[in-house]
């Protein structure tokens, strides 16, 4: 199956990835080859097989709903590109 440039751009938008126009052909070609490769899974007979989500077939372990970590906001925000008054700064969203 060959993915078109438009399809690739649509997937990139869903993935929140900006692809340069010059890259799109190459990405479409390689992505098409990957899709062709994984297409062979369709031939496997999985009629009565349940999907496997966890290698040990374990369920999600839950914990008590209590705070276990100290507040380390300043330390965590030291990695942020832009903060002010303890808040993360992003470009203006609403006019």
């Amino acid at each position, binding site marked *: 199956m060959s993915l078109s440039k438009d399809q690739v751009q649509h997937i990139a938008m869903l*993935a929140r990835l*900006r692809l340069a126009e010059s890259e799109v052909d190459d990405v479409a070609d390689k992505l098409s080859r990957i899709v062709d490769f994984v297409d062979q899974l369709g031939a496997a007979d999985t009629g009565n097989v349940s*999907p496997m989500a*966890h*290698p040990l077939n374990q369920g999600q372990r839950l914990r008590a709903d209590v705070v276990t970590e100290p507040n380390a906001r300043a330390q965590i925000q030291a990695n*942020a*590109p832009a903060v002010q008054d303890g808040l993360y700064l992003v*470009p203006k969203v609403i006019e």
Partner: protein
Amino acid sequence: MHALTLTELAQGLKARDFTSRTLTETLLERIAETGAALNAFITVTEDEALAAADAADQLLAKNKGGLLTGVPLVHKDIFCTRGVRTTCGSRMLDNFVSPYDATVVERLAAAGVVSLGKTNMDEFAMGSSNETSYFGPVLNPWDHARSPGGSSGGSAAAVAARLIPAATGTDTGGSIRQPAALTGTIGLKPTYGRVSRYGMIAFASSLDQAGVITRSAADAAALLQVMAGFDERDSTSVDQPVPDYSATLDQSLQGLRIGIVRQHFDAGLDADNAQQVKAAIAVLEAGGATVKEVDLPNLDLSVPTYYVVAPAECSSNMSRFDGVRFGHRAENATDLLDLYCRSRGEGFGAEVQRRILTGTYVLSAGYYDAYYLQAQKVRQLIAEDFRKAFADVDVIAGPTSPAPAFPLGDKTDDPITMYLNDIYTIGANLAGLPAMSVPCGMVDGLPVGLHLVGPHFSEERLLNCAHRYAAETNWHTLCPEAYR
């Protein structure tokens, strides 16, 4: 000193033959002189290492400390290290300094291990050749024109070149075992859930597992002893007692049932490689093991299954990198969507982008059932194949990689050829099984690995098998000439 294994160094430290500071200084010098040429490190933590070595020496002087007090090690740059940058081989995290330690880092530090730095790796552990790193490829110490394998290529190259006796690594589809095979080192991927994933930057959460690269099975056993065990902070951690891995290393192989997979020795395997692996299995047989053929009928579907499941999980895990709270942020974004798209487009390399796109595609409306759900069902079939095989045998032995180390750049233009490099290792990740690669020969001056896979939580048996094999051979002691 650099030629000694981790356990030999531990004995030397205990006997006060040398101090941890002297050892650390010697290795730091070696890393600076010869390590740079291999590009095996992203960060060297000289000051922190010397401070930890001094603390270890104080304990050792009082005859205190444990088995690993003062021994050196390096961490793959996928493990978060408090106060030290953790890049995961990506431009996205080039400037990220973790505010906390991964459980693996924390447990090894608590045991007195001295970390000398962070090793180079494929970006976000996505790659089989260590060529996708933002910091450039790692070179194989056996031949600088060849790949050391990936994604733990920096860890494997550093251990193979005697820059360090041991290193941590992670394995999502073979990322510990394949580089171990291509560099002539020992690589252990434990059972899924055996070692905590807390603080290990996630790529594909149902497959990722932390492990070690060493030069002896005894070293791998000693490190796993400290790293393994339940961790409340990792919801996938398994609450099961940790056995004494070193106690059973010397057990006889008498009665051990080894499975040989029919499909492993087909046309895809390099003939010389196959011969070395068969010779290695004969050594195990001579040690008392019996050999039996087993079938993994869905083996050929393991790579396509992996390349649906792993990208699907990756596309979700990578969504945390949005340029807002940490990591690379594009300049002068016009709005929030532009900020997300450009930050991610600039911060991620081509392979990571390809996997995010593949994952987004297979999870998108209209394709989810045909790709993702079907892959999860085939994954069940593959796990069932292993369950059936392990009803008849204790260990499966075969090749780790289809061929010895390949030239850098040889497979970068063809993702499928690169992906097929992991055909023998991926099955263990899909089924969550423990597996090891052990040096078992040389082809054209390049190392070859023997792959051992066992049922869940059979690390003791794999380590025993590797240790007994190493006792009969010297492949694990070979060192590239320039690094002796």
